[in-house]
C-alpha cells in the first residue's frame, strides 16, 4: 500500500480524529453513548453514510455544477441516511435499536463529519481514496463513540452490551447516564490523546 493511501486511512483515526481533534459530531456522541449496543449501531451507520456519500460525491465531482454543489451533496447524504434508517427499521434485530436511537439516525445528515469530508476530500480526489477517507473518518468517530459508551454503560448501568458485568451490589451512577458526563469523558479522552501526541498541543 502506498504511503499516501495509508495516511488517508490512519490520519482520521489517530492524528486527525474527527471528534477529539476536529471536535465534530459532538452532539450525537453525547446522545447515543448511554449503551454500547446503540453506540455500535450508530457507529456502523455513520461509517456507511460517510463512506458511501464520499464515494458517490467523488464519482460526481467533475459533473456537479459548482453553484449548487452543497445542495447536491446534501441530497446524496440524505439519501444514504434514509436508506440506512429504512434498512435498520426492516431488520428484526435492529428495529428496537433504531427506535431507541430515534431521531439520531436521521440527524446523521447534520453531522459535520459527513459534509466536511465531502467538501474537503471527496470533491478533489478519486473515488477509491474518497471511499476509504469516508470510511476511516466514520471509524475514527465510531471508535470514540464506543470508548465513551463503554465507560458510560459500565458505570451507569453496571452492564456491557446489556450483560451484567459489575457485581449486583453496584449502585449505578446516575450522573454517568446523563449527557453532561459524556462531555466530561470526552474532555478526558481529548486530554489523554494530546498528552500522547505532542504535535496536537497548542503552543
Amino acid at each position: 500500500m502506498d504511503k499516501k493511501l495509508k495516511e488517508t486511512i490512519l490520519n482520521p483515526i489517530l492524528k486527525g480524529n474527527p471528534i477529539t481533534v476536529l471536535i465534530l459530531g459532538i452532539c450525537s456522541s453525547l446522545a447515543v453513548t448511554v449503551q454500547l449496543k446503540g453506540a455500535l449501531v450508530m457507529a456502523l451507520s455513520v461509517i456507511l453514510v460517510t463512506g458511501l456519500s464520499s464515494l458517490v460525491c467523488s464519482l460526481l465531482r467533475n459533473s456537479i455544477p459548482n453553484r449548487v454543489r452543497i445542495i447536491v451533496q446534501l441530497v446524496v447524504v440524505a439519501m444514504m441516511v434514509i436508506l440506512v434508517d429504512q434498512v435498520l427499521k426492516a431488520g428484526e434485530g435492529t428495529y428496537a435499536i433504531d427506535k431507541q436511537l430515534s431521531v439520531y439516525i436521521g440527524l446523521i445528515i447534520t453531522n459535520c463529519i459527513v459534509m466536511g469530508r465531502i467538501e474537503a476530500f471527496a470533491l478533489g480526489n478519486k473515488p477509491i481514496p474518497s471511499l476509504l477517507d469516508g470510511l476511516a473518518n466514520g471509524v475514527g468517530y465510531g471508535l470514540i463513540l464506543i470508548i465513551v459508551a463503554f465507560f458510560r454503560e459500565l458505570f451507569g448501568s453496571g452492564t456491557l452490551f446489556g450483560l451484567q458485568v459489575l457485581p449486583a451490589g453496584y449502585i449505578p451512577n446516575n450522573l454517568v447516564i446523563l449527557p453532561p458526563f459524556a462531555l466530561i469523558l470526552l474532555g478526558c479522552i481529548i486530554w489523554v490523546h494530546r498528552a500522547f501526541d505532542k504535535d496536537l498541543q497548542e503552543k
Partner: protein
Amino acid sequence: MNTNSNAYTVIYTTLVVVIVAAVLAFTAMKLKPSQNANAKAETLRQMMSAAQIKPTDELYATKNAGILQLYADNIDKAYTIGLDGEQNGTLSTEKSKIDLVDNLKPQDKAIKAGDAVTLPVYVFKSGIQVIPIYGAGLWGPIWGYIAFQPDGKTIAGAYFDHDSETPGLGAKIKDEAWFREKFVGKQVKFGSEPLFNLAKNAEATGADNAIDAITGATMTSKGLNDALNVWFKAYEKHLGNKAETQNEEEE
C-alpha cells in the same frame, strides 16, 4: 461542457433528485413488509407486557415469530366497539393473519370529534382485556396499552411508548418499569370525574385512581393524563357496564 450554465444546473439537479427519489421509493416499497411485521410484533409485545403474559424483558428477547405464536396461544378474542359500547367488528386472532387496530391517531381524532370509531378490545384467555390509549406528549405522540382485570375497572398492567419525549424526563413513561408498575391495582372510577388522575401529589389524596406525575416531565405527564381520560371515557360504556353488572352479580 460548461457545468455552470443555468440550463445545465437545472437539468442536473432535476436528474439527481429524480434518481434519488426513485431509489428511495423502490427501497421503501421493498422493505415495507418487513418493517410492518416488526411494527406489528412491537405492538404485540407492548400489549402482552401490559396483559402480564410474560415479563417485558422476556418479550423483548423473543423473536417476531415467537411473539406471533405467543399471542395466538394466549388471545381469546379481539373485536372493535363504538362509542356506544356495542361491538361493531371483529379482529382476526389467527396466527397467520393477526389483525390489530394499530393506527390510533385517526381513532383519537374521531373520539374527540364524537365521530364513528372502531376501538379495539383484546380479550386474553386469562380474562384480562387490553385497550390502547393515544395522545399528545410534549414533542410528539404518546400511546400505550392498559390491561384490565375481568371486572373491567381494576388495572392489571400498563405499557407506554412515545415517539420523541425527552430522554431521562418524559421518556421515563417507557423506560422506567416502576412507572408502569404503579398502575397495577389502580381502579378507574367509571361514572365520575375524573376517571383517572395522573397529577402532581395525586397519590397523597389516597384515591384508587390517582398516580403521581413524573418530576420534570410535566407536559408528558399532563398529556398522558389527558390520553388516559379521553380513552377511558371512550370505553366507559363498554368497560363501565361490565363493572356494574359484575357488582350486581356480587350483590
